[in-house]
């Protein structure tokens, strides 16, 4: 009972200034991930853009052309799909590689043995995943123009658009960090089905949140999905005339979610990385 008390807490949990060597190691680890992504760019883009592309095509083009949805629906849909792309790409970019690395290939070990705090390896994963999410979301802009003919855009809301986009990328990556480190290897399939699918459809990306007033219970459920606030923030920036959650509320919820999930994610990451 008493022998488990540990005299040495990991240095990584203690805030302290980052040294030049650690910063260099961090950048080298980030460079490795970017290098691999850039080299496999077509595969990466196909992997992340295909799902939102089909959602956009079926809901925004096919259903409206067939008359099942009104023409204005694409204005509501596109910001939501952009939000979904950012969040889901971020989530997958941390969760999948981490589950595989920690449980099977152990490739990450070489980076865990690099001279930088282990927590910074987790931060690097989030930064990298966010960059991938950002790239995927930006690619959706021309894709949107191509499929829908035009996309809603408000130059005056650009700062809000950028803020929400970045927060969306980060929130997805942080949630992925938790998933990738908390899910045991034998549960990957189940967990991704149980988490990803509800996440996709309770995030207000295919419908504005305010319109759910007559479906109260579902509106409450969606309020627990961080994606909802990214979708609503995007709408606030791109189609301000559509009723939406107030931008400051969305930004605040996202910021808090990022801080909390990052803290939990790093803690879980340390548990996996150091026995």
């Amino acid at each position, binding site marked *: 009972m008493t*022998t*488990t*008390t*540990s*005299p*040495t807490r*990991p*240095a*990584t949990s203690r805030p302290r200034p980052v*040294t030049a*060597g*650690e910063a*260099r*190691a961090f950048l*080298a*680890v980030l*460079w*490795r991930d970017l290098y*691999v992504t850039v080299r496999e760019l077509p595969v990466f883009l196909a992997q992340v853009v295909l799902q939102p592309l089909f959602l956009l095509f079926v809901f925004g083009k096919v259903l409206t052309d067939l008359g099942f949805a009104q023409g204005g629906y694409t204005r509501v849909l596109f910001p939501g799909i952009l939000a979904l792309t950012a969040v889901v790409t971020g989530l997958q970019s941390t969760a999948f590689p981490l589950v595989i690395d920690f449980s099977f*290939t*152990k*490739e990450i*070990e*070489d*980076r*865990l*043995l*690099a*001279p*930088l*705090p*282990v927590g910074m390896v987790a931060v690097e994963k989030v930064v990298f995943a966010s960059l991938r999410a950002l790239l995927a979301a930006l690619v959706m802009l021309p894709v949107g123009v191509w499929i829908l003919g035009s996309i809603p855009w408000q130059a005056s809301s650009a700062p809000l658009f950028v803020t929400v986009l970045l927060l969306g990328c980060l929130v997805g990556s942080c949630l992925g960090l938790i998933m990738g480190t908390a899910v045991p290897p034998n549960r990957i399939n189940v967990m991704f089905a149980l988490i990803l699918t509800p996440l996709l459809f309770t995030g207000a990306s295919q419908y504005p949140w305010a319109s759910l007033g007559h479906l109260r219970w579902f509106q409450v459920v969606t309020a627990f999905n961080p994606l909802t606030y990214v979708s609503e923030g995007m709408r606030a920036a791109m189609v301000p005339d559509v009723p939406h959650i107030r931008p400051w509320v969305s930004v605040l919820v996202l910021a808090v979610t990022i801080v909390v999930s990052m803290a939990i994610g790093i803690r879980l990451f340390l548990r996996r*990385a*150091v*026995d």
Partner: protein
Amino acid sequence: MNGNGNGQGPVVEVRDLVKRYRKARTNAVDGVSFAVRRGEVFGLLGPNGAGKTTTVGVLTTRVRRSGGTASVSGVDVGADPVRARSLVAVVPQRNNLDRSLSIRQNLLFHAAYHGVPAAERVRRADALLEEFGLAERAGDKPDMFSGGQAQRVMVARALMHAPEVLFLDEPTTGLDPAARLFVWDRVRDLKARGVTIVLTTHDMDEASELADRVGIMDRGKLLALDTPAALTRGLPGRTTLEVAVALDGTPAEDLLGELGALEGVERVEPVAAAGAPGGWPPMGGPPMGGPPAGAPPDGPPGGGAPRELRARLYLGGDAALLVAPVAAVVARHRAQLTDVTIGAPSLEDVFIALTGRALR
């Protein structure tokens, strides 16, 4: 990249190290202490689950200790893991090469993580690939490599940041004999270069072949620590002297009785010519020189009595000192000594003596 790298004092120092994993009932490492000198090859020998890998895990910052101290080049691995990581390199049991990168890139990125300048990384990578016979496959992905080749790449990768200590965790487990010998040669080369090496193994041959000193571990405890020679020398009654005698009508029982009565002989037993029953087979191959058992019938005529006697003497002391007395006894019986083999005890015997169990 330097700690207290001045050649003084131990490079690796472990004192009263304890590790208990979450939810475990017992300590995986239970009060282990040892020190490794600069340039030494230090072996941790023990069965699976003895705590060897955990000990290495603590020293390489991947396992958090529960008690005691562990340092590398004077750097406390628990208090300053970042600095410690720049001083150590690990070759793990399992292939953990980066499958998205070629093996050359594996080496280059590893050095980049450790802050080796770009030009120097390239120079070191090319030199190591050449030295390890990997230059022609530098652009290949690790997936295409056999276990032995991957092992080579991992050793090369470990050397990229010029570590103070190289940890080899079961470096030859699962390798074919040729790959095993290659790893052994590399370890000797590295030692010649002055690299300090800590290796874990459950292979007693490997430990005695490579290690300057061996720590024998079992159930989290370090049971013994010394040079392989000293460890085996310390075993009472574990040295053997195997003799072959051409009998010339002499009754074997008389001879055996007298051999057994010699000072320093604890026990004597006749041995079937090939495949000794029980006991410790002599080291250094089968006995040579004597007529083989069941020799062709042109031996000395001896009626119905056996023509040859093989006996193993279990000794309390140095086997070499008993050769002359044995020869004298044999001569007195008018028999002829045809072969003498000194059987040295192995580390396996040491392990059995310490734990009462076989190593595997």
